[in-house]
């Protein structure tokens, strides 16, 4: 493939691609996200290819290894175009029937369709399934239509048109202004205005070159939204980064991602290679005179590397420990040069804003929290997976409309947002909106993970889990974080094994206060989040453990055994 040398050339190429596609031709999209692959999507895809060949349909049917549409709970997911029939939990033995019935006879295979567990209603199309119907998908809407490993697929659905628009006639300042007007805020959870950050770096006198980093570290236990997004639509992220680099004036960008997600790394690397081949990266991008290199940086693992100073230290080859900083990263970041570090989701939103304008983006969400947010919804809900919902939606809507309610008809107990540094909310606060300010008021963090907890989960045990996680993942540098977590775990060990005493909770609160005030980085400062919010909303459960030596959820083993012994006597 020869390099595309101008925005017009790109438009021409796209039109040729689209003209070459027959919209009525049957196409089988098999989700090949990590989760579906684990469910056996690889075998399903191979079976489809073999079956299509066997029935002599190769010329009339395309089979596609598509990106993750999010419904991981019911994988492997298969969508048949052009009708958009969505089959769930497809196994290789279902394949022959699907090809003969759906592709040849144009009939649906009912048993593979989505059935609403509460109403019994059957949904044929993807857009009929409540899980999808109640989402607002700006970033992940094309995932299942395209192969994440194919740049042509991405271009055919309108990909790189934002880059085209920027190169065609937007100045650096205009791009920044558009992002600024969209009120796009940092998706890491901080909520820092992205446009402002870009502008500070663009105007910085901190020297050249300037760098940009896409943070796809995502170390929260059980969170998978960022890495899945990069895996499923790497070109969206790349396009956002290229536009960002253009606006800021940076010749070098990095995608900071963990080695523990091999599929993600592979897809990102392949996307970079393809973008280079097509001339969207490298020298003189689309004839604009702008040069850019983007690399994947494999991080060394460790939760704390998600913290900006630790992240940059590790990229520079130093120990990944946070440090106290007095300069903004946009003045003195990576290798002491001006650097924009944005979360992966922040970058992924950029193409939509450029394509549709800041107004269209701001029309979604609330006044100060605009656009959508991609979460990994997990825990005791019926529909777990990657979801994209508009800001301003309430958590109740998210859990019951998108998530399909609590699994097994159990009772909802708490929602945990923001991972190990986030917090819990009880049922009474479920009408809180997904909004930076509103979530802050109830001590929740806008992290990528949402964990739903039902009545069978012990809150004390849950907090202990998070504290254990942080105790292992803390870098161990500063006293309040390292020693505080050690002592907290000791106290939790006492409480969960029936040795809790009066005063333990007060001691925990005292350690928590010192951590919040005196810890070196955000990890230590936020470490007490789950503890403090659970003490606020579920204190009686702690009291039951300490005073009555009883675990109401029946999770803490030592306390449950006590009960059995006493009954035996």
């Amino acid at each position, binding site marked *: 493939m020869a390099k595309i040398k101008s925005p017009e050339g790109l438009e021409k190429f796209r039109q040729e691609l689209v003209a070459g596609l027959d919209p009525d031709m049957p196409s089988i999209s098999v989700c090949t996200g990590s989760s579906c692959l684990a469910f056996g999507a690889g075998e399903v895809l191979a079976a489809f290819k073999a079956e299509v060949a066997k029935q002599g349909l190769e010329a009339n049917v395309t089979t596609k290894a598509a990106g993750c549409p999010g419904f991981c709970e019911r994988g492997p997911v298969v969508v048949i175009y052009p009708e958009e029939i969505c089959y769930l939990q497809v196994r290789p033995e279902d394949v022959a029937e699907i090809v003969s019935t759906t592709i040849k006879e144009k009939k649906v295979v009912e048993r593979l369709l989505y059935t609403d567990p509460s109403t019994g209603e059957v949904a044929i199309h993807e857009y009929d399934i409540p899980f999808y119907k109640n989402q607002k998908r700006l970033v992940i809407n094309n995932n299942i239509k395209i192969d994440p490993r194919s740049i042509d697929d991405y271009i055919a659905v309108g990909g790189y048109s934002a880059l085209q628009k920027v190169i065609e006639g937007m100045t650096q300042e205009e791009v920044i202004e558009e992002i600024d007007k969209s009120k796009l805020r940092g998706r890491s959870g901080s909520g820092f205005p992205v446009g402002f950050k870009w502008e500070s770096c663009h105007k910085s006198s901190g020297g050249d070159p300037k760098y940009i980093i896409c943070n796809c570290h995502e170390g929260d236990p059980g969170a998978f939204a960022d890495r899945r997004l990069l895996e499923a639509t790497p070109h969206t992220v790349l396009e956002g980064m290229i536009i960002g680099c253009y606006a800021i004036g940076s010749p070098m960008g990095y995608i900071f991602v963990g080695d523990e997600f091999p599929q993600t790394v592979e897809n990102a690397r392949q996307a970079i290679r393809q973008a280079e081949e097509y001339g969207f990266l490298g020298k003189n991008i689309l004839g604009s005179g702008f040069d850019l290199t983007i690399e994947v940086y494999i991080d060394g693992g460790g939760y704390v590397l998600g913290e900006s100073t630790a992240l940059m230290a590790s990229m520079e080859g130093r120990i990944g420990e946070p440090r106290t900083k007095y300069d903004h990263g946009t003045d003195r970041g990576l290798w002491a040069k001006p650097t924009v570090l944005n979360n992966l989701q922040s970058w992924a939103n950029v193409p939509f804003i450029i394509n549709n304008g800041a107004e269209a983006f701001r029309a979604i969400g609330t006044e100060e929290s605009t656009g959508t947010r991609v979460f990994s919804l997990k825990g005791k809900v019926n529909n777990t997976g990657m979801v994209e919902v508009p800001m301003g939606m309430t958590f109740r809507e998210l859990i019951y409309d998108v998530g399909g309610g609590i699994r097994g008809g159990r009772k909802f107990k708490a929602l945990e947002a923001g991972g190990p540094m986030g917090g819990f909310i009880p049922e009474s606060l479920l009408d809180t909106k997904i909004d930076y300010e509103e979530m802050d008021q109830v001590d929740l963090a806008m992290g990528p993970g949402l964990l739903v907890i039902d009545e069978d989960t012990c809150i004390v045990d849950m907090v202990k889990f998070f504290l254990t996680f942080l105790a292992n993942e803390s870098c161990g540098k500063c006293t*309040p974080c390292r020693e505080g977590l050690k002592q907290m775990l000791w106290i939790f060990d006492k409480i969960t094994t029936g040795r809790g005493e009066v005063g333990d909770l007060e001691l925990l609160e005292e350690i928590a206060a010192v951590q919040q005030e005196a810890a070196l980085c955000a990890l230590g400062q936020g470490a007490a989040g789950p503890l403090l919010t659970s003490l606020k909303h579920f204190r009686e459960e702690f009291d039951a453990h300490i005073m009555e030596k009883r675990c109401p959820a029946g999770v803490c083993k030592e306390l449950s055994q006590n009960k059995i012994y006493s009954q035996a006597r």
Partner: protein
Amino acid sequence: MGVVNLTIDDLEVKAEEGMTVLEAAQSVGIDIPTLCHHDKLQTYTACRICMVEVEARGRIKLDTACSSPVRENMVVKTRTERIMRIRKTLLELMLAHAPDSRDLQDYANEYGADRKRFEKMSSFCIHCGLCVRYCAEVKKKSAVVFVGSGVSREISFVPEVASKECWNCKECFELCPTEALQAAYVLSGALITSLPTLAEV
């Protein structure tokens, strides 16, 4: 070098540009406790005991005096109620490791810290990193390093390096604020593992 005017504990201080709050305070005889700080070593900000309150742009925030650069019209308070409370708890957390350390005891008396407040920990080390950083930055040997992360982090001598370098040095022992024997103990542990085995002799 320009002069920076700031206030520390209601005292007007003229400091040199580039100084830290700690240095400015010391220059006028205001005592701020430190444990991991050392003039010869790079700023580390790990023990957090030197926390002070800094008023900047109308907001009061906490910062470590050893790292905080002096700024014009800065207002620093080194002994507020909040600071005293933080230092007390931090000391208590460290006393769980080294209840008999002279340095810690002196501070404990000053801040009313209870050495038996928290569960006793098995190692004397409070992770100030003085030995580790001194060996790396001044001696440039890195014979003693941190291993592990999080709560399981500890100091350890690298046997191959320590067996060559440490016999005639041991300068790090004196830096230890808790118990010099701690380093000696860890060192001997490392050296035993580097001794030739019988088979090799």
